[in-house]
């Protein structure tokens, strides 16, 4: 039988997740292998092979490869990018060192701001100035640039970032300096700030530029190696060389290998983006537009808010205190995960985190020497998942160890039962996550009750129901393959390129023609880029956002305008006042507004596969879905009652049919995750493959 297989892989710090989808048979296979840090491409190919094998297929039957990775993120965390130099205006040698002068923590003197990516001795300056309107105040001193190039050569630098003040208004000096540097430093990657960002704020732009330069040699090497192994017919995947290989970016869009090589900074923070994009996609299939995603990992939980099926995009992200001005999905990470450690503080309160058992030693139940109770240990003691099941494919779990550490560290000191202690650990962990979700929603002006909660990550579906209940969210939606959802994002996403320009002017001083004259070149750039990538005209889409604020305000809101329509300019103020009302609770239609920036997104739709649907069944799950019963402890819904053990039915997710209804307490197990239904929760299997839970309040 003919197969049409798309594959994707997501390389995380510990595991590499892979997914293979055969569109013809409508079947999805998954695999989880250990990440191979010495060359991550190895684990990627290994994982893909395993997923493809399960279809009885081989690599040359693959039509599409999606790839997400933490290579760039890790290079920053471990500070093992290329030896990089920085060139800027005379008088600003320490721009990267001084930064924006924020302190990482308010009160702790022992926490030190990490050093910049460029050593002070590799920061150079050149005379020459451009003013804010783009006029040259002092010509570029080329001798300074050449002298800097010679010093860089002596130091053996592999990459250079260049930023001159106000280059967004006039990139002339920067481009000239880049040309001179390239001429004098053959083989060195030179990156001018306007190559990566045309937004004002010199430190953020410099930081983004330097990061891009810092990552280029690393990423270049990795992507070459990856592609080589993918097409290798003997030891690799034997991929046909006409098959597109796409890389996930931080905004949840895809980019070609070529783009990723020249703009590696765009792949930073792309790890969690795939899961958010996939959540939005599968929720739409279930007819749910407003969701909050909750990706629970070992050390942290990533939270993101999606309205009208669209993830929120922000352009101010921070990685390890390095600010990055690129479009990224607005994801809020909080320090609460399966490995978060439970402890009793000196005031007698039960705390969970912020310390984590990390991967090593890990939770006590991993049996790798962890001696402190974690959230995972609590789940295991309560019977939420099976001690005999294997987390990530390689571990059998030690229930006794989990029981012992919770008893010794929590239950006995507080004089409560081990079950109560374990349930207490979960309640505190949930309250940490609840706090994160409230912050994300309230900051954006939304009430979480208007959203469905979408938990994913291996541990997410265990915690969805209680977190939703605490937030009074009525519904939880468990996506398909929640444990490897990030990889699925790479299967179903679109190509995406952003073009951003700073332009500050009062609304009243401009006409629609003025604005269109500024927007149009960006639109044309976007379309040209998509054309170069072979996207057919009917698959191209352009989104134009104007960044607007009240005159005198120091922040702005992006307003999506219908650029093709006449009178978009006239409707802009109305849209802005509405958005302001939603976000901040008030609007002042009489106050003057101004434009501060233009943001054009070029989207190329690659023909997204249709995910499989569940066959319809009755309201009762078929008998083959039953997998016995387990004793599981649940804390009470009523804040004042006591918890109890329930003889809880266990179901196999793979056997559920659309329309099946399950009332909690119940457990639904699948390869990549375990879903916990609390007493009174009602779950319905939806034909989209999602499980939809009405949460008992």
């Amino acid at each position: 039988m003919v197969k049409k297989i798309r594959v994707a892989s997501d390389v995380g710090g510990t595991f590499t997740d892979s997914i293979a989808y055969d569109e013809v048979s409508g079947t999805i296979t998954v695999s989880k292998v250990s990440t191979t840090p010495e060359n991550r491409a190895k684990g990627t190919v290994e994982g893909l092979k395993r997923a493809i094998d399960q279809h009885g297929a081989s690599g040359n039957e693959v039509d599409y490869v999606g790839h997400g990775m933490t290579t760039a993120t890790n290079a920053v965390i471990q500070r093992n990018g290329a030896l990089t130099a920085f060139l800027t205006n005379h008088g600003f040698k320490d721009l990267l060192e001084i930064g924006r002068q924020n302190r990482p923590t308010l009160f702790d003197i022992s926490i030190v701001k990490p050093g910049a990516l460029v050593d002070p001795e590799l920061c150079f300056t050149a005379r020459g100035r451009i003013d804010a309107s783009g006029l040259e105040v002092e010509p570029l001193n080329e001798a300074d640039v050449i002298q800097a190039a010679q010093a860089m050569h002596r130091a053996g630098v592999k990459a250079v970032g260049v930023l001159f003040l106000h280059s967004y208004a006039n990139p002339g000096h920067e481009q000239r300096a880049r040309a001179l540097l390239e001429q004098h430093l053959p083989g060195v990657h030179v990156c001018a700030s306007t190559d990566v960002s045309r937004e004002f704020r010199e430190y953020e732009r410099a930081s983004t530029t330097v990061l891009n330069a810092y990552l280029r040699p690393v990423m270049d090497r990795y992507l070459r190696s990856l592609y080589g192994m993918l097409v290798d017919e003997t030891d690799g995947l034997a991929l046909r060389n006409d098959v597109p290989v796409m890389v996930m970016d931080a905004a949840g869009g895809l980019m070609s290998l070529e783009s990723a090589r020249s703009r590696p900074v765009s792949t930073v923070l792309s790890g969690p983006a795939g899961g958010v994009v996939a959540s939005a996609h599968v929720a739409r299939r279930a007819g749910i537009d407003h969701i909050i995603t909750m990706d629970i990992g070992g050390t942290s939980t990533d939270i993101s808010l999606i309205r009208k099926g669209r993830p929120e995009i922000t352009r101010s992200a921070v990685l390890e205190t390095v600010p990055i001005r690129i479009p990224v999905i607005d994801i809020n990470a909080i320090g609460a995960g399966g490995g978060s450690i439970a402890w009793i503080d000196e005031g007698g309160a039960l705390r969970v985190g912020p310390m984590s058992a990390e991967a090593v030693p890990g939770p006590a139940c991993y049996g790798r020497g962890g001696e402190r109770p974690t959230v995972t240990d609590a789940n295991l003691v309560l019977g939420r998942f099976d001690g005999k099941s294997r987390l990530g494919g390689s571990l059998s779990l030690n229930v006794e160890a989990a029981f012992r550490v919770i008893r010794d560290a929590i239950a006995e000191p507080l004089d409560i039962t081990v079950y109560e202690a374990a349930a207490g650990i979960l309640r505190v962990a949930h309250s940490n996550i609840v706090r994160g979700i409230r912050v994300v929603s309230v900051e954006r002006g939304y009430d979480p009750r208007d959203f469905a909660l979408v938990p994913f990550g291996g541990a997410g579906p265990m915690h969805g129901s209680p977190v939703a209940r605490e937030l009074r969210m009525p519904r939880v939606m468990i996506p398909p393959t929640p444990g490897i959802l990030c990889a699925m994002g790479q299967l179903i996403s679109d190509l995406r390129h952003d073009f951003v320009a700073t332009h500050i002017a009062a609304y009243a001083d401009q006409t629609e023609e003025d604005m269109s004259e500024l927007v149009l070149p960006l639109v044309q750039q976007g379309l040209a880029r998509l054309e170069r990538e072979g996207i057919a005209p009917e698959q191209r889409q352009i989104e134009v956002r104007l960044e607007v604020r009240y005159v005198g305000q120091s922040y702005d809101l992006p307003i999506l305008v219908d650029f093709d329509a006449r009178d978009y300019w006239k409707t802009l103020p109305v849209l802005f006042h509405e958005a302001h009302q939603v976000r901040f609770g008030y609007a002042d239609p009489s106050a003057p507004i101004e434009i501060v920036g233009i943001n054009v997104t070029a989207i190329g739709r690659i023909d997204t596969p249709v995910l499989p649907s569940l066959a319809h069944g009755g309201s009762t799950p078929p008998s083959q879905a039953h997998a016995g019963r387990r004793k599981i402890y649940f804390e009470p819904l009523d804040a004042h009652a006591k918890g109890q053990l329930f003889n809880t039915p266990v179901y196999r997710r793979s056997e559920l049919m659309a329309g099946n209804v399950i009332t909690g307490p119940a457990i639904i197990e699948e390869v990549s995750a375990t879903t916990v239904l609390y007493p009174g929760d009602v779950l319905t299997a939806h034909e989209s493959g999602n499980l939809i839970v009405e949460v008992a309040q």
Partner: protein
Amino acid sequence: MKTFDPIRLEVLKNAFDTIADEMALILMRAAYSPIVRDSMDFSTALCDAFGQTLAQGVTTPMHLGSFYDAMRHLLSHYEGNIFEGDVFIGNDPYAAAGQHLPDIYIIQPIFFDGRLVAWTTTLAHHADVGGIVPGSNALGATEIYQEGIRLPFLKLYERGARNASIWDILMLNVRVPSLVAGDLFAQMAACHAGQRSFVDLLERYGADEVLSYAEELHNYAERLTRAEIAQFPDGTFAFTDYLDGLGKNPVPIPITLAVSIRGDELEVDFTGTSAQVKGGVNTPLPFTKAAVFTALRSVMKSDIPNCRGFERAIRVQAPLGTVVNSVHPAPCGARGITGYRIIDAMLGALSIPLPDRVTADGMGGASVPAFGGWHDGKPFVFSETVMGTWGGAPTHDGQVGVPHMGANQANIPVEMIETNYPLRIVRYEIVPDSGGAGRYRGGNAFVREYEFLGDEAVLTLRSDKHDFPPYGLFGGKAGSGPVSVLRQKEGHEVTLPVLVTEPYVMKKGDVFRHRSPAGGGYGDALDRPEGMVLDDVLDGLISEAHAAEAFGVVIEAGHVNHAATAVRRDAMKCRSPACDS
């Protein structure tokens, strides 16, 4: 009361903190003025029915714990006269237990089933409240009447209806009514959101339950605080730091304090501190306390909730009429500088019992240059808080580009300044050799130069530590003091005093250069490993000459001359008093 459930306590503490954080986010997002939005100069809190802080969103450390005094003041005036829908406003240091006039409180009671159960409170630094200079923080003010409009606690809204008279009077007395109005609305939006979330919590857990845990939270914070203090060595530890003084002929203003630790109690006594002065650097007692709390929090290891219970184990004694407990009509518009100095003096005193938990002295808080004038027929005012140099620490060198413990404010991008004001930033760099020598070196100073491009402006400056430069600790040397020079186009140079009380005129092409103080060193410079000194030379942080002179390390052509270094260090040791032993 029943015994408390440690799990419920943690869950509710989290919920209270969430409410304070939500309020802070909403206030920041909705605010108009950059001082709130970018400098985060505001705070939000949830207080219990007695006005005791339950949770505070700490955005500016020096607001820590500052709501309780204001709430007590409000309650003593309005008890029995508080209704649903009321919104209170106030700012006066003497008639509303305020901070200084630009800091306006907006406070709203929360009712549940007809009962007053809690308060949401906010405090924001407004762009202007009138007075003799734009921004309302004149160093040269001699009494508070010159500093702007004074508000005792008043009902801006009564039972939901706005008092138009108060609003109109306020708007007429400020230079930028739209900014002030916008920020007041942001404060009210924050109060309102906090109220909604708190009522939600009461509905979910029951009012009696939540309120009993509110009380337990204070006890819990007090227990944590006392447990910390109990670990500190007992004794009385005194320290004096100084403000250089005001204007061209400064008279030093001593901040003298003694920290007494006895068991799990701690008292700070400011006896000996300067009498209040005729200049805007006096601090009302609530602000002094906030500075004391900030310093103490920085030496405590526990993650103590920002609630009233934290303050119960701490007593602050300050004689009335001093610069740290000023009385009417002392001006206090620029009292921030004194707050920084209180923290510096506190950390100096705490360095005696807790040498491993403090750093040597840093630059002493933000330098605040302000430029005002006319350009293109429109008035402009530009001021910024530039800061960021710390003293050496027990385990690392003084940081650069990091603000004082008392604040956490970002600098303003050069590209933004040059877009909006007739100024060009000519230079913003670190100054080699300026940090105090030590086992761990003080952070170097930075220099920032402003060229004026308009026709005429006046310039003022708030800075310090020229006559009393940042102190070193345990043998570390002091950092260098500040230098502020106005270079006129004709080539004439004028040196400015640290606290400018009479503005200087700037003309087109004039350049103002401010070099900050640098951090003090920690430990003896002769104990600094040669390799670290070499790294500093290679990184351009110190010169070869300075390496030899201050650290005794002889560096030649990028390498340490070990023999010459040993000889030099020996010779230097024998000149120091430590050589006697």
